[in-house]
């Protein structure tokens, strides 16, 4: 159960993610600098949050050209679970691994608050332990978190069950209140909220169990748990 945590210049949630993976869920996690290759025998890859390249030009777009993204694409094609959180989601979108785009929040503010997610797809490697429409209390922390797709793409996302998470109420102007999507095969998932900040009871004021299921799902997917 080797999980890679990809680090870009400007990543700042990589240590939180590493801590949760190793100390809370006992994964064998390793950091991978964006200029280095990923091993072929890796079980999952996580692109953590932060401000890669200072969000210059557009959040995630410069990191999407990093050498390691070629490896992430190859692994994605093989069906390896890939999760992008916040800036990681923005990078997956900008690299073309996920549809849509992330724009500035309607408020134009950096939003840092606890919200509720609704699970809309419980078939992915990161949601297979959820009941459909289960709610997850979880924090967001972003300035460019408004997910946008045009009407035709939205229809396709619905038809192909690619909407993974929706906000329980309007948060930032996202199309269809979308907070997370997956690729057509379901193995690449991107989400704006931060599960790594919600899985420990010490820092979750509501309930840490739902967010934990994101990582529990991965353990089940890669065969560590039934």
């Amino acid at each position, binding site marked *: 159960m080797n999980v890679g945590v990809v680090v870009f210049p400007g990543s700042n949630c990589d240590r939180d993610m590493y801590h949760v993976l190793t100390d809370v869920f006992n994964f064998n996690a390793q950091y991978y600098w964006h200029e280095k290759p990923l091993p072929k025998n890796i079980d999952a890859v996580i692109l953590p949050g932060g401000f890669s390249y200072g969000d210059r*030009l*557009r959040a995630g*777009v410069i990191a*999407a*050209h990093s050498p390691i993204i070629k490896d992430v694409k190859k692994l994605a094609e093989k069906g390896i679970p890939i999760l992008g959180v916040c800036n990681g989601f923005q990078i997956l979108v*900008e690299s073309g691994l996920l549809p*849509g*785009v992330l*724009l*500035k929040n*309607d*408020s*134009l503010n950096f939003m840092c608050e606890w919200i509720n997610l609704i699970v809309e797809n419980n078939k992915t490697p990161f949601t297979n332990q959820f009941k459909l429409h289960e709610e997850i209390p979880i924090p967001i922390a972003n300035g460019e978190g408004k997910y*946008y*797709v*045009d009407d035709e*793409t939205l229809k396709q996302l619905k038809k192909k069950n690619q909407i993974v998470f929706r906000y329980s109420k309007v948060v930032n*102007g996202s199309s269809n209140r979308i907070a997370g999507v997956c690729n057509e095969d379901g193995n690449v998932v991107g989400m704006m909220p931060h599960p790594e900040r919600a899985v420990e009871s010490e820092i979750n004021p509501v309930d840490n169990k739902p967010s934990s299921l994101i990582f529990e799902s991965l353990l089940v997917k890669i065969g560590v748990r039934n």
Partner: protein
Amino acid sequence: MRTFNVYVTIENKPGISDPEGDTILNDLVLKGTHKTVTKIKTAKMLKFTIKEKDKKTAKSIVQEICDELRIYNSMVSIISIDVFDI
């Protein structure tokens, strides 16, 4: 070879909200004395300085760069390119 400044303006497509432009219009300009302004759109501008044989080639190369490297996201943005002699 000649040197050109190539200005690339990236703005939202029609229909994509521009809350910053709306705020500048409604909460700054229209609250002043200039009531004839009907729309303000914000944009990002990149200025490339490039050495090429002519204006047409300079524009074409910059367009190619913008498309290849996703300098703009074609789902939500459009670009306009203007070339000037230095």
